[in-house]
C-alpha cells in the first residue's frame, strides 16, 4: 500500500508585485539583483507590507479547492540561516494559534479518488543560488535576490495518492485549475514546484525535497518507492528521514542529519497584523470567481451535447475554452468543439505555441460555416488552420490563397477517380472483394486533390464505379 503526499509551491505570477513589497512578482525579465528593494533585501530597518491582492488570490485558491477559510489569518517567522534568505528567516503561515493559514480541510477529485488538501498558506519565495566553479574547493556561492519575496502559495495534501501516475493526473488538474482562476502561470519555468513524501506498507514516511520539476517528481517518486520496496523485501528498516533528489544521478539521497537539529523557533511575525477575512469580502470573491473547470465541462456536455472527452479537454485548458467560448453559437457548438479537439490541438500542443498562435475564435466559426456549407472539406480546414496559426490572415484570404475550395463537381471527381483506379489496380480488386477497404481509395483521391474533394461524394462515386 503506497502512500504519497505532496507539498506544492505555486508562484502567484499574475500579481503585479511581490508579497511584501512593490518589486515585480514575476522576476524573470530582470538582470540579476535588479528587482530588489530595501524590503525584499531585508535591509536593517525595513518592514514588510502585505499585498492585498495576494491575500485575495490565495483565498480564491482556497475556495477553488473547497477549503475552509478562517476568520482571520496571521503570518509567522520560520527562522533558519541560508544564503538565499535575506533576513535569515522566511515569512510564512502556520496553524499554531488555531487556524491561521489561508485555508485548510479541502479536497480535489482525481478520477474516482478524493485527495484531501490539508493546508494552504501564503509565503515568500527565497532568492536563487547558483554555484560556480567546478571543484569542491573552488565552488563559490552566487546569489540572485530577484526572486526573494515572490508570492507563493503552498498547498499541502494528505498522503492520499496511491501511485506516481495519480500524482501526475492531480498535478495536471491543479495546474489547469490555477490557470483557470487567473492567479498563476504554471507553464512558466519554476513557477510550480513540488516536494513529496512516500511511505509503503504502512511504514515510516520519507520526505523528498529539492525536486526541480513535475517530471522529476514522478521520477523521484518511482525511485523512492522502488528503494523502499527493496528495503522492505530484505527486511531492512526504512528510516523516517528527509532525502533530497539528486538530479544528476537520478536517485534520492539522505540529507545531512543536521536537518534533525533544525529548530525553526516559529513565532508570530509582528510586523504584519492579523488580517480579518470578513464574510462580505469572502462573498464578493466567491461571486467573482471564474467558472470552474468542472462546471464548464458540465455545461458543454449538457447544453451542447458535446462528448464528455471533448468537453473535458476544452474545459481544462484556458486557451481552448477561451477559443470555444467566443466562437460557438447554439447551432455549431459541437462542430467548433470537435474542430478544436481534433485539429487545433494537434499542432498547438504547448503553452508557447498557444501564446504565439494567431488563430482567433472568428477563424474557427468561419471555417465551420465553410465546412457546413460544403465550400471546403474538413481536411482543407485543417490545412487552413495551420496557415492561419502562423500568419493570422483572414479565413477567406487563406482559403483563396491556398486554393482550398472544395471540389464537389462530380465530373472532376470522377476524373480523379479514374486516374486512381488506373494507378491502384490491386486496391481496386481488394475493394471489390472486401468493401471495407474502399477507404484506401477514398484516401488516395483526397491525397490527389490535396484534401479538397468532397469526401462523401467521392465515396459515393467510387462505390458506384466499383459496382459497374
Amino acid at each position, binding site marked *: 500500500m503506497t502512500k504519497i503526499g505532496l507539498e506544492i509551491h505555486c508562484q502567484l505570477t499574475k500579481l503585479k508585485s511581490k508579497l511584501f513589497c512593490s518589486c515585480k512578482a514575476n522576476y524573470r525579465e530582470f538582470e540579476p539583483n535588479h528587482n530588489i528593494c530595501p524590503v525584499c533585501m531585508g535591509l536593517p530597518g525595513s518592514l514588510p507590507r502585505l499585498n492585498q491582492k495576494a491575500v485575495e488570490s490565495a483565498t480564491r485558491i482556497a475556495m477553488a479547492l473547497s477549503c475552509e477559510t478562517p476568520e482571520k489569518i496571521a503570518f509567522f517567522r520560520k527562522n533558519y540561516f541560508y544564503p538565499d534568505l535575506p533576513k535569515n528567516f522566511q515569512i510564512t503561515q502556520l496553524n499554531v494559534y488555531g487556524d491561521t493559514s489561508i485555508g485548510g480541510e479541502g479536497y480535489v477529485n482525481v478520477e474516482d479518488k478524493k485527495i484531501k488538501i490539508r493546508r494552504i498558506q501564503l509565503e515568500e519565495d527565497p532568492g536563487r543560488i547558483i554555484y560556480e566553479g567546478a571543484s569542491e574547493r573552488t565552488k563559490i556561492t552566487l546569489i540572485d535576490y530577484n526572486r526573494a519575496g515572490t508570492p507563493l502559495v503552498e498547498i499541502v495534501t494528505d498522503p492520499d495518492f496511491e501511485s506516481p501516475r495519480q500524482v501526475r493526473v492531480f498535478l495536471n488538474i491543479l495546474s489547469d485549475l490555477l490557470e483557470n482562476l487567473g492567479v498563476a502561470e504554471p507553464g512558466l519555468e519554476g513557477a510550480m514546484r513540488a516536494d513529496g513524501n512516500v511511505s509503503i506498507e504502512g511504514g515510516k514516511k520519507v520526505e523528498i525535497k529539492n525536486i526541480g520539476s513535475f517530471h522529476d517528481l514522478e521520477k523521484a517518486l518511482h525511485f523512492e518507492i522502488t528503494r523502499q520496496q527493496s528495503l522492505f523485501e530484505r527486511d531492512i528498516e526504512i528510516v523516517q528521514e528527509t532525502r533530497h533528489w539528486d538530479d544528476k544521478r537520478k536517485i534520492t539521497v539522505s540529507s545531512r542529519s543536521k536537518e534533525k537539529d533544525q529548530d525553526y523557533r516559529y513565532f508570530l511575525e*509582528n510586523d504584519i497584523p492579523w488580517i480579518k477575512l470578513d464574510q462580505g469580502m469572502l462573498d464578493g470573491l466567491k461571486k467573482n470567481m471564474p467558472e470552474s473547470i468542472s462546471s464548464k465541462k458540465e455545461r458543454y456536455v449538457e447544453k451542447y451535447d458535446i462528448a464528455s472527452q471533448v468537453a473535458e479537454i476544452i474545459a481544462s485548458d484556458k486557451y481552448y475554452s477561451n477559443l470555444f467560448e467566443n466562437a460557438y453559437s447554439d447551432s455549431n457548438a459541437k462542430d467548433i468543439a470537435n474542430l478544436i479537439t481534433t485539429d487545433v490541438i494537434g499542432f498547438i500542443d504547448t503553452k508557447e505555441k498557444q501564446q504565439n498562435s494567431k488563430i482567433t475564435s472568428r477563424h474557427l466559426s468561419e471555417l465551420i460555416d465553410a465546412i457546413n456549407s460544403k465550400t471546403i472539406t474538413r481536411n482543407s480546414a485543417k490545412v487552413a488552420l495551420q496557415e492561419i496559426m502562423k500568419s493570422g490572415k483572414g479565413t477567406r484570404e487563406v482559403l483563396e490563397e491556398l486554393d482550398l475550395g472544395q471540389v464537389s463537381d462530380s465530373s472532376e471527381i470522377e476524373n480523379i477517380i479514374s486516374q486512381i483506379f488506373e494507378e491502384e489496380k490491386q486496391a481496386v480488386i481488394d475493394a471489390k472483394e472486401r468493401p471495407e477497404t474502399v477507404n484506401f481509395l477514398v484516401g488516395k483521391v483526397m491525397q490527389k486533390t490535396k484534401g479538397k474533394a468532397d469526401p462523401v461524394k467521392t465515396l459515393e462515386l467510387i462505390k458506384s464505379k466499383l459496382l459497374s
Partner: protein
Amino acid sequence: MNLNTSILKYIEDVKSGSFTVEEFTAATLQRIKDIDGDIHAYLSLNDSAINDAKLIDQKISSGEKIGQCYGFPISIKDNICITGTKTTCASKMLENFVAPYTATVVNRLHAEDAVITGKTNLDEFAMGLTTEFSAFGPTKNPWNLDYVPGGSSGGSAASVAANECLASLGSDTGGSVRNPASFCSVVGLKPTYGLISRYGLISYANSIEQIGPMTKTVKDSAFLLNIIAGQDANDDTTIDSNNQNYLENIEDGIEGKKIGIIKEMTTSDGLSSEVSTATKDTIHDFESLGASCEEISLPTIPYTIAAYYTITSTEAGSNLARYDNIRYGYELESEGYEYNSYISKSRTKFGPEVTRRIILGGFVPSAGHAGKYFLKSLKVKSKLISEVNNAFKKFDYMISPTAPVQPFKFGEKIDDPVTLMLLDYNTVTANLTGKPAISVPYRVVNGLPIGMQIMANSLKEKSLLQAAYALESKTTLPEVPL
C-alpha cells in the same frame, strides 16, 4: 548665544530675528566640538548641517514657505537610518553600514526643515540600560561624568541635556527613552505602539518598540510629536491617530483627573530613598494641581521583567539573524571560509550583551522550552494588558518613578545580569501593553537627576502631555553643570 533653550523659544527667536539658523547651528556645532570629547554623546556628525542651516535662512529671508521646525538642531539615535550616513547601532557588526534609504520619521523632520546634527550613541542594538554596551565606548552623564546616562538612548539623552542639540529621537523598547531621560533630566516620551512609523528603525524587538522624542520641555515633546506621528504606508503596524494637534490645549491642567499610583512600582523597598521621597512629593504636587491620587495594584507586574526579556530576546534573536556579514556589515574576506563558519566568525563582532540575548533568544522559543518561557510570556503580556485596561477604566493616568534609583557609576551594575534587568522594572509595562508613557524631569538630588513617569491609555498622548505639562510646571530644576 544661549544654547540652553527650548524648541519653541528657539523658533520664536529665529522668527523675530534674534539670530539666524546658521548662527545657532554653528554655535551648536561648536558646543559639540568643545564638550563631546568628554561626553561622547555622538557617534557621527552631519557634515552638511551648516549648509542645511544656510538654505533654511535663505528660505526665510526670501519669504519662501518654511517648515515648522525653522532649522532647529536635532540629533538622531544611531539605530535610525538616514541615506548616505553610517548607521551602526553602536555595533562592530554594522561598522561600515551606510544606509541606502531614510527612515520615515527623519523624512518628516526634513520635510519640516529640521537640521540634523548627527547620530547619537546607544547600547549596542539598543540592548541595555546604561549605554555601557556600546561597541564604541559609553556616553557620560552630563550631570556627572563618572555616572551613566542611562540607556539604551544614552547618547540622545546626553546630547539634549548637554545642549548639544535641542531635541533627539530615541527608541524605547523597555524604557530606552524614558530611563535615560530620567537619568539626564530631560523629557522622554514613549508613544502608543503604532503611533510612530518604525520604517527605518533597525529592529530589536519589533512587537513593542517605538521611536520617541527626547526634549527639554513637555511642550517641545508635543511639538515634535506633531511632526513625526501618524500612519505610514511603509509600516503595516502604524495606526490611525486622527491627526491630533498635541500642542493644542496642553495647558488645560488636570483638575478632577484620577491618578493611580502603581503599588508594585512604588514600594519603598524597591526604590532608593531619594526616589521614594521624590515620589511622595510628586503625589502631593498632583494633588495640589486638583487631581486625586489613589494606590492601584497591578499584580502581574512582578512577572513583567521575565516576560519582557523572554519576548525581546526571542525577537532579537530573529531580528539580528540577518547580520551574517554577506550583504552588508564590515570588512571580512570570505576566501577560505565555508558558509557556516564564515557566519559564526563574522558574528563574533557582536558585543557580549547582544551575544547573550541572541543565545537566550534561541533558547526560550525553542521546541522544548517555548511552553515554559516564550508562550508563558505571551500570556503574561495578555494578562497585563487586561489588568492595565481595567485600571484605565477607573484612572486617567497611572504614575511611578521612571527608574527605581538615581544614576550610578560606570561599572557598578554591569556585572549582575538580574540587577541590571530590574532597572527596567517600572518601564517595561508601558512597552508590553503598548500604552504611552512619559518621563518628566522632577528633581536633581546630590547632582543626580530623578524623573517621574506618567502613563495613559492608548492613543491618549494629548491627555498625557497635559498631565506632564502640569507636573513640569511644579518643578524647578538646576542647569546642567557642564
